[in-house]
């Protein structure tokens, strides 16, 4: 049963990475899109793409937190005691990100749009870094078991954590750019498709380089995970690399649709490979999944909740994405039909 819940947790992490990750990545491109005029078109595309889906994507994070504290309370205690600083920064960043984005849509003056947009964009970079750093700290055994706190600083500012944090930013940016290429193409905006295609390629290269550095760092700092990556998780790693490379090829050939699927698989591969490599440990080499698990009654309740979620939430989720893809959910913001102030709004 604890294995099943661990798999659910890993899948939820994967879903969060490929869905919400892209929303954060869009914030990264928003951040470096340049001044109000230069960045008007990419920011407009980002806003329309992220607008209808980010809140639903964000819920995956809540789901991950809930599953962790309910199914693996002891591990949860250790992680949060140790990772107080990065998780505090992430919490502040999440407030700034969500509210900044929502406020930017709701105001028309350029001055305020820049302020809120800045909050949205900067925190979109900060949050994935912190999340990645926490993951790196866990993987490299910085979190002690037994509900104790590890080092408040070294636990997330060691080589593995920093590389993982940067990798998280790069992967998020990569995914976002790939999705935005697709969105731009569907909107027949070839200039924007080109714009994000080049950025997707750059981000892919950066992510690839960081992955290689990551493997080297993991080799010295997280030997258990390294052994896992080169043995039982090897097929997943290979799949991820192949998909990533193929996605690059398809991007170069302007096949946005296929590139999108492959990019998702490549990123999902990274998360799944980490989970498989770390198995059977939740906190490598000190706390295993089965030892950390809550009593069976709790795990059963969680599984029931997950089944219910599949029955209730999944149809809604599919409906949301189908409607969004069929453009039945036009992003209105405040300046809706016939609004004179529409012309003041970038994007």
């Amino acid at each position, binding site marked *: 049963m604890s294995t099943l819940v661990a798999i659910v947790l890993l899948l939820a992490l994967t879903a969060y990475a490929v869905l919400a990750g892209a929303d954060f990545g869009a914030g990264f491109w928003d951040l470096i899109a340049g001044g109000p005029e230069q960045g008007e078109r990419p920011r407009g595309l980002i806003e329309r793409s992220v607008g209808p889906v980010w809140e639903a994507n964000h819920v995956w994070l809540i789901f991950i937190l809930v599953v962790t504290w*309910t199914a693996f*309370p002891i591990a949860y205690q250790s992680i949060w005691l140790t990772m107080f600083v990065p998780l505090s920064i992430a919490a*502040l960043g999440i*407030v700034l990100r969500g509210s900044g984005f929502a406020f930017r849509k709701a105001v028309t003056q350029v001055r305020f749009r820049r302020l809120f947009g800045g909050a949205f964009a900067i925190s979109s970079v900060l949050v994935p870094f912190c999340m990645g750093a926490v993951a790196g700290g866990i993987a490299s055994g910085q979190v002690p078991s037994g509900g104790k706190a590890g080092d408040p600083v070294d636990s997330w500012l060691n080589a593995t954590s920093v590389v993982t944090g940067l990798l998280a930013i790069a992967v998020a940016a990569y995914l976002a750019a790939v999705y935005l290429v697709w969105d731009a193409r569907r*909107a027949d905006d070839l200039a924007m498709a080109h714009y994000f295609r080049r950025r997707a390629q750059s981000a892919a290269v950066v992510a690839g380089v960081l992955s290689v550095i990551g493997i080297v760092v993991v080799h010295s700092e997280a030997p258990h995970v390294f052994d896992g990556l080169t043995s039982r998780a090897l097929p997943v790693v290979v799949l991820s690399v192949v998909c990533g490379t193929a996605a690059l090829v398809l991007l170069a050939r302007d096949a946005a649709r296929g590139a999108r699927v492959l990019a998702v698989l490549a990123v999902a591969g990274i998360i799944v490979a980490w989970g498989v490599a770390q198995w059977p440990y939740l906190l490598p080499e000190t706390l295993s999944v089965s030892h950390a698990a809550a009593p069976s009654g709790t795990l*059963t309740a969680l599984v029931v909740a997950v089944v219910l979620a599949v029955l209730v939430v999944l149809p809604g989720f599919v409906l949301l*994405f189908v409607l969004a893809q069929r453009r039945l959910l036009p992003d209105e913001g405040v300046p809706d039909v016939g609004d004179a102030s529409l012309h003041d709004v970038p994007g």
Partner: protein
Amino acid sequence: MSGTVSDLLAVASVNPVPWARSQMAFTLAFHIILVPLGVSWSFMTLIANYRGVRHQDKAALLLAQRWSKYMALTFAVGAVTGTVLSFEFGLLWPRFMGRWGDAFGVPFAFEGIFFFTEAIFVTIYIFGWRRLSPWAHFWTGVPIPVAGVLGAASVVAANAWMNSPSGFTLDSDGNIVDVDPWKVIFNDAMPLQATHMLIAAYVVGGLLIASVYAVGILRGRDDRYHRLGLIIPFTVAAIALPIQMAVGDALARWVYNEQPVKFAAIEMVPKTRSDVPETLLGHLSSNGTVSGGLPIPGLASWLSDPSTGKSTVVKGLDSVPADTRPTTAEVNVVHLAWDVMVGLGTLLFLLAVWYAAALVFRRRMPTGRWFLRAVACSGILAVVTMEAGWVVTEVGRQPWIVYNRMRVEDAATGNSGVWITFVGLFVLYAALGVTTILVLRSMSRRFRRRGGFVDDDVPYGPSGPPAQREPTDDSAKVGSSP
């Protein structure tokens, strides 16, 4: 690098417990204002939407459309402040979660489902105005209040579990070895506490929204649009208010039976006795005497159990050792909060009676300036009432985080940097609150500037949008995900 930061942390080394309590209280107090909007505003929007579509009522439809746009903003703010709370379980109370997470966490697993559903359908509803058919669009809104109610009930179930922990077996070391999820969720305190909060959500949401339109009418915008904007939410709140009084009364009696120390704090009863007066206001001093206030002889005893009347014995604070009950200062806070909740709740109830009487005897809503002024104040008063009620249940449980099982100081984090996050969040939330109100107001001004019922402003318009809109708005509406 590690050295400098550690030094800094050492300088700032302070007891994290009071900071953790303050931060949790502050962020919860903020979030709880957004909860009623999430839970009940969608319901009122659907009433307006139904009316608009069924009776071709343009004003109602416009109201529903604008409400959904405001709701988009408050829902987003509620989503992030709710996320902060779930972070705080780990950041501030890691030892609580480590020890009790396997039981306490269960209701949240179900809350997750409902929150997910709510987020999905809120999005579809808000973005679906122009392209979905009227009834299809209406039905995409129906899951929102349902999920809102069930989600809020799940969260309150977790809080109720802290008041009435059940559904688990401990081994000799005090670790949880077995959990009965059903008994965790449907713990003793849950049915009444969840009902009380949900009805509060409808009262607060209804009055808060009605108060905005009352102000509008008072400022001379007395049109059908504003009247509907007052009548729909106010009627919902007016129906909820008498139910709330009955539920609150039942809940108080539950507290009398199951959490006698909290009840003693509520009624300010230092020593166990019968014929306890209901003291309005007043003050408990550290030597255990009650001074000031207006005592109504025997009423507290009588209300606790009408069947035995004034001879009902009410347990006092002295029924448990001093270190297992709220401090004197906390008792005074609980008692004052209780008086505020009951007092303001009664005033709001009288306002609902005024409204109902006018409907029954005059066949129309009261439109006098004094009624409108009262409604204009009722929104803020309802928020204060709800906050006071929440203070009663939370402070009244002290010093326990899990009633009679775990003390707050044993649950808190050992991280001495909590004061930094508290200051950071305080500043951030202050900015967030002010900005939310300013943005809502600027939206309202912009709506108003655009004026009445221009043709393109009507939802469910022709599916081919006006040509000028094509390039800026309609050409690129797609999701960002596969």
